C-alpha cells in the first residue's frame, strides 16, 4: 500500500505568522494548508492523508484548545502542535493531557517546530496504520458466521476442542472444521495470533 503525501495544517489568525510557518514547513518539503480560524478549518473536508495540525492557542472565536476538544469528540483526532504568544502553564498541561504533540512558546527555534511537526506526522501515520489494520481485521471478523464467531471466542479464551464441542453440543470434528475456517478467514498464523486479534477486536473471555 503506497502512502499518500502528508500535509501540515496551519491554523493561526496572524497572516504574517502563517506565511512564516508555510515557508518554514516548506523548507523540509512538506505540503501545507492554512486557515485563519478554527471555524474555517472545521468547515473544510477532513484530510485523507497523514496530517498534523499547527495551531495558535489564542484566536478570536474558537480557541486552539476548543478546537482540540471538538476534534477529540467528533472527527478523527489529529496530532496537534500548539503555539502560544506567552507561556501559560495550566493551558500547556491541559493541551498536553489532551494529547498535544508539543506546546511551543513564540518565538521558538525553527528546528523545534519541524521536529514537533515530524513527530506529529509519525504519530498520525501510526494511527492511520493502526486504524487501517483495525478496519481490515474487523472486515475479516465480519466475514465469520455466527457459529464461527462462537468458536473464535472460545478458542481465544483457551478452551480445548473437546470442551468447545461439549459446550456447543456438537462433535469435536465439527468444531475442528469451524476452527480451520476461523484461522483461514482471519488469516491467522497461529492460535497466539488469533488471541492478539481477539484482543484488538475487543473480544475476550468476558464475552459470555
Amino acid at each position, binding site marked *: 500500500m503506497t502512502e499518500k503525501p502528508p500535509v501540515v495544517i496551519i491554523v493561526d489568525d*496572524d497572516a*504574517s*505568522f502563517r*506565511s*512564516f510557518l508555510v*515557508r*518554514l514547513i516548506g*523548507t523540509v518539503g512538506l505540503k501545507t494548508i492554512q486557515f485563519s480560524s478554527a471555524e474555517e478549518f472545521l468547515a473544510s473536508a477532513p484530510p485523507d492523508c497523514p496530517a498534523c495540525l499547527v495551531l495558535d492557542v*489564542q*484566536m*478570536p*472565536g474558537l480557541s486552539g484548545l476548543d478546537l482540540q476538544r471538538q476534534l477529540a469528540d467528533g472527527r478523527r483526532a489529529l496530532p496537534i502542535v500548539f503555539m502560544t*504568544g*506567552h507561556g501559560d502553564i495550566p493551558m500547556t498541561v491541559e493541551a498536553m493531557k489532551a494529547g498535544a504533540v508539543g506546546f511551543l512558546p*513564540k*518565538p*521558538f*527555534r*525553527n528546528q523545534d517546530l519541524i521536529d514537533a511537526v515530524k513527530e506529529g506526522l509519525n504519530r498520525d501515520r501510526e494511527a492511520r496504520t493502526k486504524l487501517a489494520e483495525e478496519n481490515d481485521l474487523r472486515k475479516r471478523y465480519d466475514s465469520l458466521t455466527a457459529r464461527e464467531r462462537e468458536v473464535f471466542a472460545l478458542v481465544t479464551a483457551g478452551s480445548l476442542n473437546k470442551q468447545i464441542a461439549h459446550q456447543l453440543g456438537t462433535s469435536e470434528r465439527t468444531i475442528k472444521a469451524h476452527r480451520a475456517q476461523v484461522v483461514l478467514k482471519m488469516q491467522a498464523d497461529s492460535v497466539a495470533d488469533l488471541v492478539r486479534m481477539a484482543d484488538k477486536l475487543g473480544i475476550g473471555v468476558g464475552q459470555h
Partner: protein
Amino acid sequence: MDGHNQGHASNRIDHGQNRTPFVRSDATLRLIFENTPDANLLIEEGLIFDCNQAAIEMLRYGQRKALLSLPTSELSPDVQPDGRSSSAKLAEVIAAAFLKGSQRFEWIAKRSDNTQFPAEVLLTSIPFEDRHILHAVFRDISRRKEAERELSRSRQKEDEFRAGQGRVLEMIARGETIENVLANLVTLIEAQSEGMLCSVLQLSEDGKYIRHGAAPNLPEIYVQAVNGAPIGPKNGSCGTAMFLGKPVIVTDMLTDPLWEDYLELAKLSGLRACWSTPIFSGSGQVLGSFAMYYRQPQAPTGTESRLTEVATHIAGIAIERKRAEEQLRTTQSELAHVARVTTMGELAASIAHEVNQPLGAIVGNADICLSWLDVGNPDLTQLREAIEDIANDGHRASQVILRIRSLVKKQAPEKRPLDLSEVAREVLELVSHEAKRKQVALSSVLGNELPLVHADRVQLQQVLLNLVMNGIEAMNDVDGRKPTLSVMTDRFGDGVIATVTDSGVGFESTKAEQLFKPFHTTKSAGMGMGLAISRSIIEAHGGKLWAEANQDFGASFRFTLPASREGRND
C-alpha cells in the same frame, strides 16, 4: 446788648450816647478791637463803617479809609463755591444773624486785589439803639483748608493703595500667572513713592539661585544680569538678603562692600540705593526678595518700610501659591502616570503577545534565510520575500511599542487641539488584542469632523483606555450573553461626547456616583483610582464624566468636552 449772648465788650457800650460812634468811646475796647488778629468789621445798612487793622491787612486795602463806606458786597466774589450768588447767600445769613443773634459760616471772601481766600465768618447782630449794626469777624482759614485738602488727598491715596492691594490679591485668587501678579504688585508699590523703582526676585527651588520675578521698570541689562545669579553672603542686596534671610539696606551701591563684585553692573544700571527684604513662606522658608531702588544714595523712611511690608506679604502669598499649584499639578500628573502604568500592566499580557507575534516571525524567517544561505545558491526570489516579511514584521512590532510608549512615558501634560475620534481610534488599536483575548466583540461608531478639543492626548487616551478596560473587566464573569463593547464619539452641544458601553455586570443606578470615589474597586488587582483619576482629568479639561446603568444590562460611561477655541483648521 441786653439778653444777647455777645462778648463782654458789648456790655460796656454806653447806652446814653446817641448817634455817637460805636465803641470809639472806650479806649480800652478800641485797643482790643484794633489788636485782635481776626479781621473785624462793623456794618450798617450794607456799608462798612468801622474796621480794625487786621481787616485792612487781610483784605489788602492799604488804608482804613479805603475800606470805610465800602459796600459789603465788595468783600465777596459774585458766586460762592456752591454756585449760588454771594448776595443772595449773604442776605440769608444776615437775616439769620438778626433773628438768632449771631451766625457762623464759611465764606469765600474777596480782597481788594480781587484775590480770594476761604474765611470763617462770625456775624453778630448788635442792637444799638434802633440801629441794625452787624459785627463781622473774618478769620482766614486758607491753611486749615489746605491741610484738609492734603488730608483728603492722602486718604484717597491710601484708599487707592488698599484697592490696588485688593486687585493684586484678586489676581492671585483668580490664578493669573505669577509674572502678571508680581508685575502688578511692583507697579502698585512704585506708584506710592516718587522716583522709586522696585523688583521682586524669586529663589530657585533648590535655594541656590536668583530667578527673575518682576521688575517692569528696571533697566533690562540689570534684570538679565541678576536672573540666574547665585545667592551668598556678599552678593549684592538681594542675593545677600535671600542668603541671610534678613533685610539688607544698601544706601549707596557704589561704595557698599556687598556690591563690590557687582560694581560694574551697579554703575551700568544707574541705580544707587538698593534696599532688599527677603520674602518668606508661611513656614518661614525664603521664597525670594523684594527690593526698592533709587537713582540717588539714600536710606529708607518709615513709609518705605511699611510699603515693603505690604509688598513682601503679598509677593509671599503669590509665590507660595504658585509653588503649591505647581506641586499639585506635579502630584496629579504623577498619579495619572501611575494609573496609566497600572492599566498598561493589566494590558501587559496582550502587549507581550502583540510584540511576540511579529518577533517570532522575524526570528523564524531570519533563521530560514540563514539556512538557505548556508546551503548556498539560494533562490533569490524566495529570499527576498522572506526578508520583506522580516521588515514588515519589524515595522509592526515597533508600531506596537510606539503606541504604548507615550502612555508609559512620564511627561508633563500638554494641551493641544485634538480630534476625539482620532484618540478613540488609537485606544481601540491598543486594546484590540486584549478584546480578542477576552473574546469581547469590539465595535465603534466614531463621529467625523468633530469639533476639536483642547486637551492632552495622553491623558485623553488614558481616560478612554480606562473606560474600555473597565468595560472588558466587567464582562469577565458574565455567562449567557456575548460580551460586547462599543465606543462612540459624537457632537454634543458646542463640544463633543464619548460613550463607552459594555454588556457586563452593570451597577445599581443609585450607586453611580460611588464608582468615582477614590479606592472604590471591584477588581482584585486594581487600586480603585482609575475612574477617580479619569474624572479629575476630564474636569481639568472643562468636561464632565458620568456613568449610566443600561436599560437591559451593562453600563455606559460618558464624558463631554468643550470645543477648543482654536477650532478646526485642518
